[in-house]
């Protein structure tokens, strides 16, 4: 019986997140459209509201092309690895008090572990397609994820120290239901590092070198088509959602808001996540892409020393306060 309830909860979560992914693409196209003084999608449905569904149906019925020289089994498996790893990390997110599928003690580490597994999907896609562009995209993504995972992990150490736990719900509880309790107030440097590393970790502009259109056609997804292409797309948007959620949980006070909403407790969480998603899109519409050496220099020479210094100062302040 318990297993049945859990299965239903998982089904609801997956359905909601997939719907979210579909409309996140609409959200992105509309916002970028308006920022560039265009209308964005307008034809399918009222103001293009049915566009994501039309896109989904189209990619579902398209031919699934497999290159002749590709490593077939890995080529077929890569998008599945990517999407599955991203979806599994949804299970530990606390959407509201008690609204987490698995409230585990090492939730934060679990999400890092799953995001490193997802990068395997990208690397393998790049290698298995047997094309120069995809291989370059895969290798770039590999180097980028390794470098920025260190920065993102170190930036969250300050949060772990202040809250004394790795459990995501307890991190939210440690910030308490107040504005000044939010860790963005006490850990501004960590939030800065986290935010930049988050953009790089999800391969978003200005760090979207793995799929830089101007030099690599479409990077690691060049050879993919139809539903498998859509799976990479979904994995990328779920990745954005997960990273934005981590930001909300660790720095913006999770599900707490100015006032409690009685019927639908996750409302503040969702609003905050959408605020960060809006920032993602705003940055994409505004900034040009970094060069590859600049990307590495920012990661290793700026973000990692900053977060190490932040750990030291946080530790010092905590010892002095005791």
């Amino acid at each position: 019986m318990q297993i049945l309830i859990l299965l239903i909860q998982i089904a609801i979560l997956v359905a909601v997140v997939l719907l979210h992914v579909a409309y996140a693409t609409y959200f992105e196209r509309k916002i970028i459209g308006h920022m560039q003084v265009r209308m964005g999608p307008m034809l399918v449905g009222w103001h293009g509201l049915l566009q994501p569904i039309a896109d989904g149906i189209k990619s579902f019925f398209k031919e699934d092309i497999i290159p002749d020289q590709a490593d077939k089994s890995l080529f077929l498996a890569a998008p599945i690895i990517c999407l599955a790893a991203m979806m599994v990390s949804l299970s530990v997110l606390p959407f509201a008090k008690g609204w987490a599928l698995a409230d585990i003690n090492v939730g934060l580490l679990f999400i890092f572990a799953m995001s490193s597994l997802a990068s395997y999907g990208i690397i393998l896609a790049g290698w298995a397609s047997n094309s120069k562009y995809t291989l370059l995209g895969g290798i770039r993504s590999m180097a980028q994820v390794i470098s920025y995972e260190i920065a993102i992990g170190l930036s969250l150490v300050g949060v772990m120290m202040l809250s004394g736990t790795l459990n995501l719900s307890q991190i939210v509880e440690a910030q308490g239901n107040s504005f000044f309790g939010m860790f963005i107030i006490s850990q501004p440097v960590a939030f800065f590092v986290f935010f930049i590393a988050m953009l790089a970790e999800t391969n978003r502009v200005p760090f979207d070198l793995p799929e830089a259109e101007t030099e690599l056609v479409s990077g690691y997804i060049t050879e993919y088509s139809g539903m498998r292409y859509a799976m990479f797309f979904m994995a990328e948007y779920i990745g954005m959602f997960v990273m934005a959620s981590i930001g909300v949980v660790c720095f913006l006070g999770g599900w707490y808001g100015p006032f409690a909403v009685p019927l639908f407790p996750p409302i503040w969480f969702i609003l905050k996540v959408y605020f960060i998603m809006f920032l993602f899109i705003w940055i994409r519409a505004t900034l040009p892409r970094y060069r590859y050496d600049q990307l590495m220099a920012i990661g290793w020479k700026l973000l990692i020393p900053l977060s190490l210094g932040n750990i030291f100062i946080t530790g010092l302040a905590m010892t002095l306060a005791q």
Partner: protein
Amino acid sequence: MLIKSIFLYCALVIITTAILTVRFRNPVHSVLAVLVLFFHMAGLYLLLNAEFLAAVQVIVYAGAILVLYLFVVFLVNVKKEIKTDRFIASYKIAAICSFLVFVLLIAGSRSFLIGPSGKWTIEAVNRITHTKAIGSEIFSTYVLPFEIVALILLVAVIGGILLAKQDKQEDFSIHKKRFPQLKEDNSA
């Protein structure tokens, strides 16, 4: 019963993937077999109530070290594998020796004892969470070995930097030999 079957499943997959790692023709497939192996190792840690170790196993080994292996495999790019029957002539003796070692290990495993239970029983670890238990042990009881390990790693880092820097200087000296006018530019 459930825990035992999970253990058996993990052990079976670990052994199978370990064999597959050596048997696969393609090095990338071998690396992937190791990836599956690491995940099931993490599963074993979870069975032992060591959730921190399980997460770190995946993050460090699967997320960083194995990716570096993949890097090497990609960049070396083994197109064709050398095919010979045996690398050494005395393979029969080697096979007998390894079989004897296997028999010895199996025979030795019968005399395994359950170690004495220390301060950290399962209840004690669960009460303050595994992460905290490991942290407090490392930074109190085992602080000296921990610092020594840190020192060894630091030596490795310094050695790596030294090697990388040395190459550049040597390159420049070669350039100097080849183009003597470079020296004058430097002094000016």
